[in-house]
């Protein structure tokens, strides 16, 4: 954000009009990325005092809400527990997620300390927290990289990574943007229900740390919307 950059007062800064998480503008577009980098590096020659310069080109469009839709009908099960519904959903998504991993030869899953093949264990851990409301006990028997309750936030991230990777391989997928992915996860999936339920547990705990974790668990646009929010990007 320009507002943050102005406060930090860097010697040379290139302001870019791209969404958060995409500082070079376009994935898999080396020419676009290098143009942004060249613009920033050129300021080494042109700037003679602290300068914030605008990058004039918008990023290529990425499919947003209303343009992209997941072809799968989720949640897939009427199980009585959050854990049951989440595991059924993960099973439905798994072939697609594995396909993306194979295509890319990598995955971002595993920041929790889980191994890439422990998706079900991560889902069971998160589901059990939703089902029991236990925000203190360490779930499952994985050697997690985080302690409770901050572990909750990273369990959520690992599963969101798994869901994003599942979407990426589906036929007709056009790389949805952050808003479309968040609308889908928080509006149409068992994972979204699990996260909103856990958020309710965190809020009810009325504790500083639990409130902090709540703030990091769900995007601002989906906070307090247990029906998933459906914030529309029509304002964009």
């Amino acid at each position, binding site marked *: 954000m320009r507002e943050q950059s102005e406060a930090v007062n*860097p*010697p040379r800064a290139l302001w870019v009009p791209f969404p*958060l998480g995409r500082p070079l503008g376009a994935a*898999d577009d080396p020419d676009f990325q290098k143009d942004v980098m060249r613009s920033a590096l050129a300021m*080494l020659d042109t700037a003679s005092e602290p300068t914030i310069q605008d990058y004039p080109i918008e990023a290529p469009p990425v499919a947003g809400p209303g343009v992209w839709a997941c072809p799968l009908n989720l949640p897939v099960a009427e199980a009585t527990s959050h854990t049951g519904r989440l595991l059924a959903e993960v099973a439905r998504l798994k072939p697609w997620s594995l396909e993306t991993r194979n295509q890319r030869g*990598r995955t971002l899953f595993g920041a929790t300390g889980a191994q890439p093949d422990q998706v079900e264990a991560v889902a069971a851990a998160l589901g059990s927290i939703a089902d029991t409301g236990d925000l203190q006990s360490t779930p499952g028997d994985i050697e997690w990289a985080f302690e409770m309750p901050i572990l909750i936030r990273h369990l959520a991230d690992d599963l969101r990574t798994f869901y994003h990777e599942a979407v990426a391989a589906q036929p007709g997928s056009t790389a949805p943007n952050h808003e479309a992915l968040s609308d889908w996860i928080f509006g149409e999936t068992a994972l979204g229900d699990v996260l909103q339920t856990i958020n309710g547990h965190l809020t009810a705990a009325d504790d500083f740390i639990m409130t902090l974790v709540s703030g990091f668990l769900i995007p601002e646009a989906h*906070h307090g919307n247990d029906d998933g929010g459906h914030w529309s990007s029509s304002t964009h």
Partner: protein
Amino acid sequence: MVRLSDLDPAEEAHLQARADAMSPVESAPWVTPRPLYESTVAIVSTAGLHRRTDPPFQAGAVDYRIVPGDVEWGDLVLSHISTNFDRSAFQQDPNISFPLERLHEMANDGEIGGVSNWHYSFMGAQPNHAALRDTGEEVGRLLAADGVDVALLIPV
């Protein structure tokens, strides 16, 4: 960076309040590096990325992780605390915020002198950027010792 007005209103208000709470940073001494085609370039990221074998960033962390210049993409994960930025683009193409392959291409084409042996990663979303002074200066010394002329600081 992004336009605040492009964000969901709740997120816009949150980030505006964070910006308003920031205290100004004094200007650093002005340095003009050697020509770019002779300069060694390093990336300093605030995306909270690190190798899978590294300890992850904890909430409020002001420490950093080192990333070797020949890192394999599959070795990298993100443990940034913020949930408000798009990770799917990094999943698709890590160069979107850590353009290591682009730097190597620019070095091969003679646009830059070279690519640093080491790059550095912090976690952004810092409520108190003054707390980063010690580790920031430490990374500055490491970059200088590595012969780096230009640091490309890439927020996420």
